């Protein structure tokens, strides 16, 4: 087999990377990427390729050789004719479809897990700095198993009277209201949720709900109620204990290293 020319190699790299972005990253691995993001990446890739081939004169000449051959050589006539017809046709098609496609709805860009405010509050009462406040009933786990269990049980009651409509029987975000919500309810069985946040973070998210989110997290879209309107402070701490007990995930504690 003949060795591939530098130009063909670069072309292959470019196409493979495009396929990777379009169908692997944005498809198999994650949700489809916006076209603008893909073209940004492709621009960078193209730039990198051009820099690579133009660093040395010889390499650049080698890179351009097949292009020049195709454009001018007599014995490349067939290839040239095909390309001279194909390229304008492809451009025609792309431009036409671009002008004919319908506008895409705006992408929902939001911060899923924003930083909490520095001060943790229940209604207007300041509890303390968010970074330092601990669940006041957590210590019972060591000190008084029975009392601890009573708090967990109370949390269970609170959860199934208030939360499971959206967050689901199994705390998996698959409650019977979930299909109608966007953003979707949090899935506490996801190992990336409970272990990554302190209990005070959950207290903040539960007590202040959707409207308590910072603008980057689109507070106007979240259906999470402001639970301090419906639950007592103790009930909120209890439901956090229950979430942790049920899923087996422990919230991060103060002083633990950042992940």
């Amino acid at each position, binding site marked *: 087999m003949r060795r591939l020319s530098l130009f063909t190699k670069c072309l292959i790299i470019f196409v493979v990377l495009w396929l990777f972005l379009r169908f692997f990253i944005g498809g198999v691995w994650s949700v489809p990427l916006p076209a603008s993001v893909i073209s940004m990446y492709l621009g960078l890739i193209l730039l990198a390729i051009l820099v690579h081939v133009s660093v040395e004169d010889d390499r650049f000449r080698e890179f351009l050789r097949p292009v*020049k051959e195709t*454009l*001018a050589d007599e014995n490349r006539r067939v290839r*040239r004719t095909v*390309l*001279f017809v194909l*390229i*304008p*046709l492809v*451009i*025609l*098609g792309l*431009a*036409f479809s671009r*002008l*004919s496609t*319908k*506008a895409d*709805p*705006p*992408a*929902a*860009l*939001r911060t899923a897990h924003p930083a909490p405010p520095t001060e943790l509050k229940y209604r207007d009462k300041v509890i303390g700095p968010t970074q330092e406040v601990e669940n006041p009933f957590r210590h019972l786990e060591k000190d008084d198993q029975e009392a601890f269990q009573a708090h967990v049980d109370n949390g*269970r*009651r609170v*959860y*199934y*009277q*208030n939360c*499971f*409509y959206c967050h*689901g*029987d*199994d705390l*998996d975000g*698959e*409650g*019977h*209201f979930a*299909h*109608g*919500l*966007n953003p979707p309810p949090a899935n506490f069985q996801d190992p990336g949720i409970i272990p990554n946040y302190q209990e005070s973070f959950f207290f903040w998210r539960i007590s202040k*709900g*959707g*409207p308590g989110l910072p*603008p*980057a997290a*689109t*507070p*106007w*879209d979240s*259906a999470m*109620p*402001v639970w301090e*309107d*419906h639950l007592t402070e103790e009930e909120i701490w209890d439901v956090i204990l229950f979430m942790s007990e*049920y899923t087996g995930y422990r919230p991060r504690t103060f002083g633990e290293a950042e992940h």
Partner: protein
Amino acid sequence: MEKQSYKNTLLIVIGNLILLLAVFSITAFAQGKTAPAASEEGKALYDDKCAHCHGIEGAGDGSAAENLLPRPRDFTRGLYKIRSTESGQLPTDQDLFDIISNGMPGSSMPAWSEILSEGEQWQLVAHIKAFYDGFEGASPRLIDVSGKVPYSEESIAQGKEFYTNLGCVDCHGVIGRGDGTSAPDLADEWGFRSWPANLWEQWNYRGGSTTEDIFKRFIGGIAGSPMPSFISSFRLGLTDEESARMNDLELKMDGDGLSDTEEEEYAALEEKLFMFEDIMLNVEEGVELTPEEQTKLDTALEPILEKSWHLANYVKSLGPEERPPAAVGDKVLRSQYRAEGLPGMNDEAWNEIQEVSYFPLVGQIVIDPRQFNPSIDSVTAKSFYNDNEIVFLFTWDDRTKTLPQTDDETGETVEDALAIQFPVKISEGPTDPKPYFIYGDSRPVYLWSWKVAEPSTVIEMNAKGIGTATVQADQAPIQAEGVYKDGQYQLWIKRSLTTEDRNDVQFAPGVFIPIAFSAWDGSNGDVKTKRAISTWYTFVLDPVPSNKRFVYPPLVALISVGLLFGLRSSVRRRQNT
């Protein structure tokens, strides 16, 4: 010699064992698996996963039960809705397993198949059975599904006829949206409200939506609910003609009275019925029927089973199996430009839009009073616009038409209503703030409020937070028409694209405009904040395809040809020099 006979005996024993195993596995296969003995593990699992709804003692009275409808099952009475067994029978173990595994769509019972192992689910079956003594030694009779009638247009047509004539419409409504005349007053065995199924929403069929599933619900009935076994609607032992004749005679008996010959005729028919009742009594008590009786029973049941298959095929034909996808992404609501004029409510032109946009609704549980059990589950929409105006056709299913009336429980005046919500100012990007999805906040929303009492009026409102909705002093001329038919509201609304009022939303092509809904079902106690709501969706007035697409692309293509030739000649020139 002795060795030989020993071998023979061994062979016979093994042979018998194999036979026994085969027989056993065949019965096991026919009846599904059976649950293991109740165990501590089963109880622990039950207490962790089930008790918060079904109660520690299985009485359906867990802490969550109060706010759920349908209520969690009370296991202490042996009444199970979804069974593969005949009317009045207990479910099989496999039935219970299937319910745990698949959940009950349309209720709060989730599918546990992905969460618990098969073994764990069987342990739960065992534990649940222990709540009711009647399971001991019970061998429920299975519904015979062998006579399945294939799905065909003909069968559907027959099924439709039975649907209309056999009383289904009383609860499920003329075309099956669960809006029958008795729908508002139905209650289950425990006295809780029971909504007849909306047969168009197969994704909510509690026991699945295959034709066999539907057939089993007809034959077995839905125990504990007002849904009877289909068989009970017939006079077993009489032919259709005899049954009709008996009806006539009964009518006459109540009216003019019967002649002597008619009296005799009636007595003869009654005799036939009584004979059959004896057979049914034997069946009920598990007494083995004589071959003659069995034949009689089979002959009597055959036409009923066949009718049930037709009926099942009809019900199956009513709607899609899956809930439609929500109106996001490529399903987003697109108002179509229509130069030929905007259609009125009943215009054929609406059929030009094949796919309606589907907006799921959920209960409003953010602000008191809350609605944990909404009865309206979605709004659908289509829309057209032209250079001056925009027109919408909204539909939503509601099993009851409720004109303003006093709610028995709360004393509030309730009625059916819909509100369509837009932001006053349309945000310019995904991070540009929008008003809060329930009636806005410091950023106001613009509302179209429609109520059933005045079906041709839409009132313009503004709100800056829930409870702050105010009627605009300056009402733009909005045309509206609302109609209730067969369990569904249709609401047609037309407004000019733009208005002079700064508090109105302004519609312009190509702009994605947020839209949200609130729906009230008066019969479900909906009033004020207690209602069904949607989150924000967006819709767009699809821009008219521009003629530019016939100009620019060829131009660009031509330029590219020119460039290619230019490149070629420049390369050649350099090579020649």
